[in-house]
């Protein structure tokens, strides 16, 4: 059993704190994805779990044992690096068996494990080649093979797919998830790509500025984003935000142009007159049957994606994107009216960005 428990973990370089007291539990067998923009501390957190960065405060434990003072090799982990970090002067076989040879495993056992990993990853024909003679996808697989042969309790992935082309990335993403399902291990995966995050994760950890903004299943995070940051980061294209004032009684929000939007939220009753941020996902906007009570928008850009089209425009001061059916007749310059269901509206505090809706 190897659950990863992070308690009040902090990391500082000199006087600069980059991780601010992070708490998270990743259960045994779970696929956890840490996602966030560059510089949010996600890789640092992963490297702290790996033991490549010292933990400044708090604890990180794996399988019930505190790992803070343990060397990376004693943590029962394996890591796949962004640039693969294959040893260029060794063959694929030597790359995969390097750790096992250091651990002085018997030769037949090493060979058995290498062959097994090569079979799973379809690398059997490449065992005697050097990394320089392999394609990007094959190198990626060798890096995973090197992790598998160690038979670790926890797999750590540091943006492993970011150097691959789009098609290969989708393919490897599926392979990684299959691999995780077939091996009884815990995986922690770092990425800045929210599609990778949504598709791979059992548990999503959305990081921003050294804090975990939200931890939950991908659907929870998508349906109930805890902050405007999470709402804007998860989902593509990002959620639309417009600001407005809460009306009397808290049953509606008035936007800049006087438009009243009905909201079904009793927590707003006490906030009459205050400014809030109203968020609606592009896929929840529809062309309104009548202009009455709908949001008017002048289209300034249309992107046809095939399955649907994205219409860009301004509402008040804010840019708004609507995902419309592919047969919607919308052209640049059109004035369209958009409506949305009250249940699809997310309300956030205008200053803190924290979620107000339940």
């Amino acid at each position, binding site marked *: 059993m190897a659950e990863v428990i992070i308690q009040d973990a902090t990391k500082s370089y000199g006087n600069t704190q980059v991780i601010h007291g992070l708490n998270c539990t990743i259960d045994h067998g779970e696929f956890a994805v840490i996602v966030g923009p560059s510089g949010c501390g996600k890789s640092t957190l992963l490297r702290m779990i*790996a*033991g*490549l960065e010292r933990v400044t405060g708090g604890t990180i434990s794996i399988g019930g044992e505190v790992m803070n003072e343990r*060397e*990376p*090799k004693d943590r029962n*982990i*394996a*890591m796949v*690096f*962004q*640039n693969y*970090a294959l*040893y*260029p*002067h060794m063959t694929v076989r030597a790359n995969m068996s*390097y*750790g096992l040879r*250091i*651990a002085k495993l018997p030769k037949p056992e090493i060979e058995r494990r290498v062959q097994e990993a090569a079979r799973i990853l379809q690398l059997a024909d490449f065992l005697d080649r*050097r990394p*320089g003679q392999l394609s990007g996808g094959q190198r990626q697989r060798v890096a995973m093979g*090197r992790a598998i042969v*160690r038979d670790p309790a926890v797999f750590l992935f540091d943006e492993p797919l970011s150097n691959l082309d789009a098609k290969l990335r989708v393919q490897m993403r599926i392979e990684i998830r299959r691999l995780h399902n077939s091996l009884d291990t815990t995986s922690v995966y770092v990425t800045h790509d929210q599609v990778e995050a949504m598709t791979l994760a059992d548990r999503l950890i959305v990081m921003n500025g050294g804090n975990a903004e939200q931890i939950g299943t991908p659907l929870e995070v998508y349906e109930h984003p805890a902050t405007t940051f999470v709402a804007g980061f998860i989902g593509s294209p990002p959620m639309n935000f417009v600001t407005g004032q809460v009306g009397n009684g808290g049953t509606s929000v008035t936007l800049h142009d006087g438009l009243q939007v009905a909201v079904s939220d009793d927590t707003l009753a006490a906030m009459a007159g205050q400014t809030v941020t109203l968020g609606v996902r592009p896929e929840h906007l529809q062309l309104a049957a009548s202009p009455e009570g709908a949001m008017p928008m002048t289209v300034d850009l249309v992107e046809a994606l095939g399955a649907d089209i994205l219409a860009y425009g301004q509402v008040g001061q804010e840019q708004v994107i609507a995902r419309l059916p592919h047969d919607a007749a919308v052209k640049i310059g059109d004035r369209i009216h958009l409506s949305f269901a009250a249940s699809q509206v997310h309300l956030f505090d205008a200053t803190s960005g924290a979620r107000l809706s339940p």
Partner: protein
Amino acid sequence: MDRRVTFNHRFLPYFLLAPQVAVTLVFFVWPAGQALFQSTLIEDPFGLSSEFVFLDNFAFVLSDPLYVDSIIVTAIFSVSVAAVALLVALFLAAKADSVISGKLIYRTLLVWPYAVAPAIAGVLFLFMFSPRVGVLSSALTALGVDWNYLLNGNQAMMLVIGASAWKQISYNFLFFLAGMQAMPRSLLEAAAIDGAGPTRRFWTITFPLLMPITFFLLVINMIFAFFETFGVIEAVTQGGPAGATNILVYKVFRDGFVGLDFGSSAAQSVILMAIVISLTVLQFRYVEKKVTY
């Protein structure tokens, strides 16, 4: 894609190449041709007459036991200089690479010796190790070492090797350090996760990956030891005692400009040139193939 540049004007490429060709002609081809020509002549000491003797000079040089001694001395000297300079530089670079604060100071200080001319390096060592006034020689004497390189050939050899290697260490150090810093950190991190300790990481990852650089430096150091150490020898031992540090390039100078035997001196420099060219070719053909990935 065709990477070749095409010129509209026919003579422009020749014009652009001309300065480089001129430099090569004047400073390499001409003197080398002169040496080749001279090596077939015997000249009287006053330079008034010369006689064509074909390969007699070579036959004379190669059958001279003093010349064979000089070859052995040169082999010991150049291999030692290259080995000492490479090993010490590798050690220093590995240490400097792991230093976290004050990196720049270390690097700058370690590079300084390269700015010192070989002859001056020789004089520095001369002062430090002079049997009469040297600071370090009195320390050695105090330790019970009978230090006098003016009489002891092995000590003289160690001294010139030390002085020459000291100068070359900086150069090697720069290359090694650059090589180590260009290496992705994640390689060593992956090795650390694989369970390799620092020493093991160095010998199984860092060092093999530095092989192309090491090989390049080996060639450069050998050439340095063959030719550019003239200043050190001249300043410290003048080839002595009893020819113990009389390396080939120094013997060329002694026989030619002190002994005024131009024919023999020219023949020696031709041989020296042949040795270095063949060494370099050998190294590039057989060693380089094994060290590139």
